């Protein structure tokens, strides 16, 4: 319902509350009024021209690590 795309922040304009971001190689300017304190290098989720959330890199890694761990513990040894 609300298609949002992750984009990397390249440059922040804190006075106009805008940022230049990179989305899959194409650059665009988005509003950052909803994500105060966002920094260059972080990833934001963009919807209708506004960054609506900062993506949590640590969480992204942890989420995957957790599932891998769960699989390692629960898969019987010797299974292909």
């Amino acid at each position, binding site marked *: 319902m609300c298609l949002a795309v992750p984009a990397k922040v390249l440059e922040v304009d804190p006075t106009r509350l805008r940022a230049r971001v990179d989305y899959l190689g194409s650059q665009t300017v988005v509003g950052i009024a909803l994500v105060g304190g966002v920094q260059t290098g972080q990833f934001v989720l963009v919807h209708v021209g506004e960054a609506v*959330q900062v993506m949590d*890199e640590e969480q992204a890694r942890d989420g995957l690590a957790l599932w891998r761990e769960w699989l390692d513990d*629960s898969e019987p040894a010797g299974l292909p």
Partner: protein
Amino acid sequence: MVSPCGGSGLTTVNLLAYRDPELFARLLRRIIPALEEQVQKLGRRVRIMEVCGTHTVSFSRTGVRQVLADFVELISGPGCPVCVTDQSDIDHMIAYAKRPGTVVATFGDMMQVPGSAASLRRQRAEGADVRVVYSPSQAVDLALENPQKQVVLLGVGFETTAPGVALSLKRAARDGVRNYFVYSVHKLTPPALKALVEDPDHRLDGFLLPGHVSAIIGRRGWTLLELLNQPAVIGGFEPLDLVVSVYRLVQEMKRPVRLVVNNYGRVVREDGNPAAQRLLEETFEAAPARWRGFGMLPQSGLEISETYRAFDARVALPVDRPVTKAVRGCRCGEVVKGKETPLQCRLFGTACTPERPLGPCMVSDEGTCSIYYQYERSHHRDRREEPHEDYALARGWRQPDA
């Protein structure tokens, strides 16, 4: 390997790793016994509503729908803003396009939605000034560029979209833009899910909650579902997100007391986005709203608040109420509630196609009919015959009825 996302490590984690085919296969192998167990217990497939239209697309496009088809019946919910907009509101919005001196600014998927007499696209072909905007702030720019005209933004969308519109209202107020107006039909998701849960006809086992609405309202925004003890999981949109969310949802079903599980932690926080919530409180107020298929739902819409009333198109720029007629045979109202699938509609794929849509569910990229038209038509015959319902029978888990 060359990453299509620019090769940064973070992008790899965010986008690609949640698509890792090897991890997907391992997870699937591990998860299927749990799904099988639940199917056996129920004597039928697990019925999960994916509320968000983007989830419906993801399940089809990635093939996860087919992979899980023996165990899970995915039911598309009220997660397409254009689709849940009441016909009278659509007619109202189209009426603005006919108003002299008016520029209608809209997100793209409204253009082709059929009103009772015409669509915005048709109005534009007949000379109306209708512009597709990518963001609400572009609509404010339009107002500044056309000072002698009135610019009306069609505010269609859920909790994720409304903050962007709220920002445009604040900007218009700050800069004294007097020719910018919003026609708000913004809607809040939780009241619609409550209505579904309370519907005695409904037989849903759990909800896959919209990830990007949750980015705004947070896990806490769904306490209503916890009060109703509904199994519910907030999920992302990549293949690993989908399959793990379904698993966690089935695990939640097995518990006597259900909590809303956040399986999209890289985007969704417990409290959501407080800045966006404050902005919504300042510029809008919750009000009863009419939904296609549901009718009037209390506190389920966003009306422009007292402070910003000068920008409310309904108040500042009223148009005559147009005559609204329903499209005969269109099942969109039942489809958004998950009570029917597009494949049960007699117009689907015959009289009603994306090229010539009769209802909004066939227009929007997030509309269930449009998604099923694009991805699920080839399974049409299978679905009608519902072979999966016989899965439990075939496996001998359930005795045939006498």
